[in-house]
């Protein structure tokens, strides 16, 4: 994903001389091609995230679309108030990019587990969350964001995720993107972010055979009202995410049904138990051990 990110950003920056990239002293072996190609639009802000976001907001207020790149919780929680006040409130085109979303940095430990970031970002009324499921969705998200510059958060996994789309898909905020059609029984898995790959594996597990699979790469507070009509077309929806159950994607979907409570029973949420906080293990191990499942459901491999 991160390689698709920098490759697509270079493509877009070639067309738009107001795209700038600020990094928080991270991105080794990823961001160099951008830095070499556009030295005037590349800034290493150092290990100073609060200034980095304020700086990005200031540049954005003067016409730049600024991408701010760092890992895990550093460009989000460390500088949450700068994102809230400077970027979101002023509706400035800053895209906060984090690499290592969810449990991607599994063995690195709790400091590097970005499992509360959706909760933070979806509290901000003007932030559009972009959580692509594969490298093609990364490109789609970047194209959408540069065509529609706005306060935004781009959550990337790491590197080497499989491409699940043949081409760069057409996407829009709050719209479900069909990845797999299912058997017509009106049951679907619905995921956002890098758990798309896991979700596809779940389709082979007994409990989910015949399910369709949808991804939602763009979402946020303003896209909530679009959910009920889409949910109404399905009998059963199981959401899957690499985030704590509290404040995550599934809870956002549930909240979207406040005015359509009859649809609520169609939603089941698969997200992380808070016991993951502080656990050590690879991404797959932690995900398998900490995803909350019904007591009678087999753990998908």
């Amino acid at each position, binding site marked *: 994903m991160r390689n698709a990110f920098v490759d697509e950003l270079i493509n877009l920056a070639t067309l738009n001389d107001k795209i700038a990239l600020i990094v928080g002293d991270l991105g080794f072996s990823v961001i160099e091609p951008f830095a070499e190609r556009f030295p005037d639009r590349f800034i290493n802000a*150092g290990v100073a995230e609060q*200034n980095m976001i*304020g700086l990005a907001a200031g540049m954005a*207020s003067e016409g730049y679309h600024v991408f701010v790149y760092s890992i895990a919780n550093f460009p989000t929680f460390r500088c949450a108030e*700068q994102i809230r006040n400077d970027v979101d409130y002023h509706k400035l085109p800053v895209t906060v990019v984090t690499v290592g979303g969810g449990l991607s940095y599994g063995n690195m430990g709790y400091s590097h587990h970005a499992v509360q970031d959706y909760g933070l970002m979806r509290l901000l009324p003007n932030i559009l969350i972009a959580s692509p499921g594969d490298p093609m969705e990364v490109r789609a998200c970047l194209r959408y964001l540069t065509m529609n510059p706005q306060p935004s958060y781009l959550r990337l996994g790491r590197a080497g995720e499989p491409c699940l789309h043949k081409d760069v898909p057409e996407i829009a905020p709050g719209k479900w993107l069909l990845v797999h059609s299912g058997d017509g029984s009106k049951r679907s898995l619905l995921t956002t972010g890098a758990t798309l790959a896991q979700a596809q594996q779940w389709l082979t597990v007994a409990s989910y055979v015949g399910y369709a699979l949808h991804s939602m790469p763009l979402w946020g507070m303003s896209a909530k009202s679009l959910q009920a009509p889409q949910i109404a077309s399905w009998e059963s929806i199981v959401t899957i995410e690499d985030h704590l159950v509290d404040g995550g994607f599934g809870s956002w979907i549930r909240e979207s049904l406040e005015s359509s409570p009859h649809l609520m029973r169609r939603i089941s949420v698969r997200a992380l138990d808070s016991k993951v906080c502080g656990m050590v293990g690879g991404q797959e191990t932690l995900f398998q051990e900490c995803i909350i499942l019904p007591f009678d459901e087999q753990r998908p491999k």
Partner: protein
Amino acid sequence: MPMDTISFSKQIRKNVLQMVYHAKASHIGSCFSIADIVAVLYGATLNLYVNDPAWPNRDRFILSKGHAAAAIYAALALKGFFPLEELQIYGNDGSRLMAHISHKVPGVEFSTGSLGHGLPFSTGKALAAKKQGLTWRVFTLMSDGEMDEGSNWEAFMFSAHHSLDNLVAIIDYNKIQSLTTVAKTLGIEPLAEKLRAFGWSVREVNGHDHDQLHSALNTTPWEEGKPSVLIAHTTKGKGVSFMENEVKWHYHSPNREQLSLATLEIDNA
């Protein structure tokens, strides 16, 4: 011009006094502390057009100590950015003149209210100007208590590293912060030496002396390739004797009797 800005500063103080009295608002001490700095900035330094607040080549002014918004609103209204009568609804329900500075008010670039945001944002503006070869400047007015915020020191370091000599920070050094003196809270001295060590060009003035303010603010950058920081030694509550150097005037609003006394003192100053 010094005489003009002195009269302007009196008008700012008188309007702030009325605004804070009617809204029963806080922070009058902070507003009086910066009234002379604001008068010189808006009266003699900033390159602005009242009829075109978004003129691309304007100088940018950021109030980082957003709680002193009333002083800026008064200055902007006196300059004609919006009707003077609107000051009467400062702090009222539904008014755009909220008690911490708002970018929704004509002439205001950026909303603040949480300390430590103005300088990093200004740094981004200054960098954007440099990268595009534009000659406008960025002025940021900060508080002394605000020096406690780590984000400012990140921005001080960044600005000097990137040679942003189009950036001017002004520190309103009135020596009092929220609960007590700056010295008793978190000592910031030696402030000038710290800022020089961070790579800034530093000057110190009496923040109520218009001649000193004028000559400092209208000659930046003082050193090519370095951002400028003006340490303005001020008095919290300046201009009203019973408000000067008193922590409580960070919070209190005057009663009717205090309003009369204060108005008299400002008029006779």
